[in-house]
């Protein structure tokens, strides 16, 4: 369990590799009931919307950012604030990495603020984020 007194500004959170596939994108878009063709119809995606390939959902990357935090704190806390944005599109076939670091520690409230990222293989941040997690005492 994460102890607020062990949390230091700048401390990195564990990183995770993501290799989305046709199958995982299908399941994700089925689960969120999203029929946007850029996530499964390559002919449409490249021909009509002019992307170079099938697009990895931005909100899926948002979910990965929450998992960076949740897998770090386990049952020892919960996210009370979360934000992210889609800065750069990611495409099927790319390997992405999620991670983050501690930006602020509020001892009195047992709250930790973290910055988060999803990066592509070129090191470009595709989805930056920020979260506040409240640790259980």
């Amino acid at each position, binding site marked *: 369990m994460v102890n607020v007194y062990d949390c230091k500004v700048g401390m990195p959170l564990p990183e995770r590799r*993501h290799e989305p596939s046709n199958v*995982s994108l299908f*399941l*994700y878009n*089925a*689960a*969120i*009931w*999203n*029929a*946007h*063709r*850029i996530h499964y*119809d390559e002919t*449409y995606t490249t021909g*009509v*919307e002019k992307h170079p390939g099938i*697009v990895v*959902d*931005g*909100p*899926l990357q*948002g*979910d*990965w950012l*929450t*998992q960076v935090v*949740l*897998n770090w704190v*386990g*049952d020892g806390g*919960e*996210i*009370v*604030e*979360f*934000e*992210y*944005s*889609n800065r750069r*599109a990611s495409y099927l076939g790319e390997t992405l990495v999620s991670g983050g670091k501690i930006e602020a520690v509020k001892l009195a409230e047992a709250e930790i603020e973290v910055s988060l990222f999803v990066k592509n293989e070129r090191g470009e941040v595709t*989805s930056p984020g920020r979260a506040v997690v409240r640790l259980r005492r």
Partner: protein
Amino acid sequence: MALITDAARGMIGTSDPPMRVEVTRRDIIKYSVATEQQQEKFLRGDEAPPMFLFGALRPVVPIGALGPDGIPASSLTPDLPLKRFMAGGTKTHYFRPVRPGDVLVATRSLTDMYEKRGSQGDLIFLTYKVDVRTEVGERIAEEVQTRIAR
């Protein structure tokens, strides 16, 4: 640029009718598997991951009501000269986790609309405020969502 007409801007402040959603354990499990969650409480469906709400609150409409891009026409999407939409991001305050059996009531309002010039051309940003409570009024989440037309 002036891509946004007065008629489109006039939609700012309008809301959709409240959406009522019954959350099942199976819905949570499907979402958790699809997003490759690693916490047992999510994979068992005891509790929903935070971003579960994004999918749970998406509209379910007849296939004939989907556009050629596969996206449903939204009553809160103004007529814009840019027709290709993508998710821009969210900012959310969570008051408590969603659990199976919860009956959620969500209200969504169009709160702002503005233009920007991106590296690949003009963009229009639409922002929405979403308020999520249980049927008895307990607060679950408050979210600002951004959609981008390009």
